[in-house]
């Protein structure tokens, strides 16, 4: 069975800059996929290739079993929402949503009822006669969403749709998009550089960097088993420490052996990653002496930044201490304490 959308060996360069390098990816019917990565990683280019707004240098794109690599956008089956809303400024909200429907030759009544249905869906039933400039950013983006969905496309493409909005509106709209997507069962691809957004919304995340796919997986997989140092750093926070591998392939951190699987390493070194919330202060099997530098209150937890005492790390070690545990620890900036490392939380990466 072929995937709903299949991308095979896709490459694209702009002059000397390689935007996408041999990308292959399968997306199933009804999935919500996020392309996640820093700016310039190729995520937007990949979306534009899927939309047909750019042409690929190499490779193929198959949608619903049809090779649409060479199709212009109007021959493809998708709706799109941009960061800038891109509403037709001189058309009312009603006409913005109805323009595509009218163009399909639908009867006036049919257009009327369809648009009314969409206005209700996005909660703007009484805004049909307004012009885009009379709406707030969040409202405009909802109109853009309704417009993209009005023709019932098989694929919804979202190009950083939330980036131009206020934090509060953003969270609200991301719930709206996600619940609408689930209800309609429409296959959706969203481009974003916000890892929190991607984790909250996606069925699967495609982490990209420098025109490559670094990892594809569910938010949980990406967070718990990052495939590379890049993914580990980009998604969530991660401390990195350099560890020695002795001739017996045993990993040593600050001269203490760690209960990790044997690590064959030619350089004799590995990089250990551990998330701030997986570190604790106190007593345990593997303890590391540290000095607390600063403490930032974050609401439900305090993020302590620590310097290693008598051993080395690539940068200050961050530790998240839940507020309810804080009382028992008597931590304060400048105090010395001991970090407990539990091996099951350690991610091992090859040393640089």
């Amino acid at each position, binding site marked *: 069975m072929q995937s709903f959308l299949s991308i095979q060996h896709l490459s694209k360069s702009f002059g000397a800059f390689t935007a996408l390098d041999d990308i292959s990816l399968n997306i199933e019917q009804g999935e919500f996929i996020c392309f996640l990565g820093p700016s310039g990683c190729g995520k937007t280019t990949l979306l534009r290739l899927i939309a*047909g*707004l750019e042409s690929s240098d190499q490779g193929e794109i198959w949608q619903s079993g049809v090779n649409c690599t060479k199709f212009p956008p109007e021959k493809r089956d998708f709706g799109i929402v941009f960061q*800038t809303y891109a509403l037709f400024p001189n058309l*009312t909200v009603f006409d913005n949503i109805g323009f595509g429907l009218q163009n399909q030759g639908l009867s006036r009544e049919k257009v009327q009822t369809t648009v009314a249905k969409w206005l209700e869906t996005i909660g703007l039933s009484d805004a049909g006669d307004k012009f885009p400039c009379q709406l707030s950013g969040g409202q405009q983006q909802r109109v853009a969403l309704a417009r993209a969905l009005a023709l019932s496309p098989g694929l919804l*493409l979202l190009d950083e749709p939330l980036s131009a909005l206020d934090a509060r509106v953003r969270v609200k709209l991301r719930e709206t998009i996600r619940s609408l997507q689930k209800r309609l069962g429409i296959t959706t691809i969203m481009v974003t550089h916000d890892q929190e957004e991607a984790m909250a919304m996606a069925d699967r995340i495609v982490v990209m960097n420098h025109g490559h796919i670094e990892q594809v997986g569910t938010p949980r997989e990406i967070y718990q088993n990052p495939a590379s140092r890049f993914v580990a750093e980009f998604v969530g926070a991660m401390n990195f420490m350099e560890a020695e591998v002795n001739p017996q392939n045993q990993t040593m951190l600050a001269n203490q052996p760690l209960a990790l699987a044997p690590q064959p390493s030619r350089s004799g070194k590995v990089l250990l990653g551990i998330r701030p919330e997986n570190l604790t202060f106190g007593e345990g099997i593997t303890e590391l002496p540290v000095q607390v530098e600063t403490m930032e209150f974050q609401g439900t937890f305090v993020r302590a930044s620590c310097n290693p005492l008598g051993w080395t790390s690539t940068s200050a070690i961050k530790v998240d201490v839940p507020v309810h545990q804080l009382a028992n620890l008597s931590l304060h900036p400048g105090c010395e304490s001991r970090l407990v490392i539990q091996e099951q939380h350690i991610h091992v990466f090859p040393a640089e």
Partner: protein
Amino acid sequence: MDLSTTANRPLYRETSQRRPVFNTGKLVSALCITGVSLYLLVTLLLPLMAMLARSVQDSQGRFVGIGNFAEYLGTHALTQSISNTLTIGFVVTGIVVTLAFLFAYGLTRTCMPCKTAFKVLGMLPILAPSLLPAISMIYLFGNQGVARDLLMGHSVYGILGIVIGLVFWTFPHALLILNTALSTSDARLYESARVMKSSALRTFLTVTLPAAKFGLISTTAVVFTLVVTDFGVPKVIGGQYNVLATDIYKQVVGQQNFAMGAVISVLLLLPAIIAFLVDRRVQKRQKELFGSRSVAYQPEPSPIRDRLFLVICSLMIMAILSIIAMAVYGSLVTFWPWNLELSLQNYRFENFSAQGWVPFFNSLKLATGTAIVGTLVIFITAYCVEKVKMAASIKWLIQVMTMLPVAIPGMVLGLGYIFFFNQPENPLGMFYGTMALLVLNTVAHYFTVGHLTALSALKKLPNEIEAVAASLKIPQYRAFFKVSLPVCLPALLDIGIYLFVNAMTTTSAVVFLYSSDIMPASVAVMNMEDAGQNGPAAAMAVLIMLTAATVKVVHLQVGKKLLNNTQRWRR
């Protein structure tokens, strides 16, 4: 399509097996780009090339290298024109920039009363052909002028008349740029200066002037180009004071020496292109100056300063109005200076020239044609540049060709048209001597400003409109007619009016291209004045100005109502 068979396909198929999809959109785009490129090539670049080629050929069309230039530079009577042209250029530019700066300062930085009226009156000269102030000079300071004694024995014919006439005529162009430059000023800078207890003079020197610096340079470049390339004023009031623009006319029309005309054109092209390049550089840097976070400066009342500027600006307006009023009065006087009875005698053009009123209607046709054709071509070109995908090299070529006209003096373009369209082997030669060619020439001459207006209007549309339309299966042309075109309607109207007014008043390029049955009004002014018929010449010049003014007023009034109906979405 059967999924089981597609699944069995090899992942990679030969590229040759890919069937290209026929794409109407691409075809239309390709046609548009080709059309626009060809249009600009034929109406601009090729005539210019023909002119350049002619400057290195002798009268038989043989290549003589720089022979013509050597001959020109060896003739003292001719080279004198170079220094004359530059003198006029520097003197007028200096005066106009100073006056316009004071005027614009009054409008933007003081609380003097009646600012709107001042601004409108200050812009009046833009509606007149450059011949009008020259004719007015004759009535005021000529041999039988009413205010001849003010000159204390000096003759107005020559540098004096040219300078006054050109100061009048270029003033609004300078005012337009400086007014914008001075009004986009960050109030925060002035607040900082006050916090630092800086004196008024020091604030002016360290805040006001640097902020207006780019505007001043730009104004200087624009005014200088207008002055050195103007033909109308020196033609009428220049007397024995020859400049490059009149020399081209004399060489071509008087002596039929086309090669020498081409040589002088090349020389005239140089300062214009230098001024243009300076202006381009400056404008590129100007953009960073006033960001979206700046706060606009609001002047506070200051009785002494406000009254001072009221006096200064009033004096300038009085000068402008008296020049216009003199021309109007002169046109109404039955026979200057012997019969001062007011009548419409001078407006009976059939009594003075064989063409009668025909040139006026020719000009109306020319202006209407230029406005319609020009607006269409300019908007399609701007749309192509902004919204249609094309190879970078073609885009560059089109952009260069759209910016070029502003640097090309009308005389030079007109001469290029003779050389290019009057070649016997050129199939486009059938346009030679027709109104159509006059229209094409005028559109090409005033292309750049309209193009920039269209571009900035299109840039206000979201970039992704076309992508969205494509995803909604709306063809680009439908999106164009339903969205891009209506959104740009006010800009289109502006461009049309701009072209109309300029086509009414232009003298330079058309002077080489008209034939007696399509003679435009501005040329008729020149010819009647040449024949010593000052009264009818003044009358025709006044008619041109009235027509331009009427169109402008209609634009403002009727246009406003029209826009209220179609631009409801703007707030």
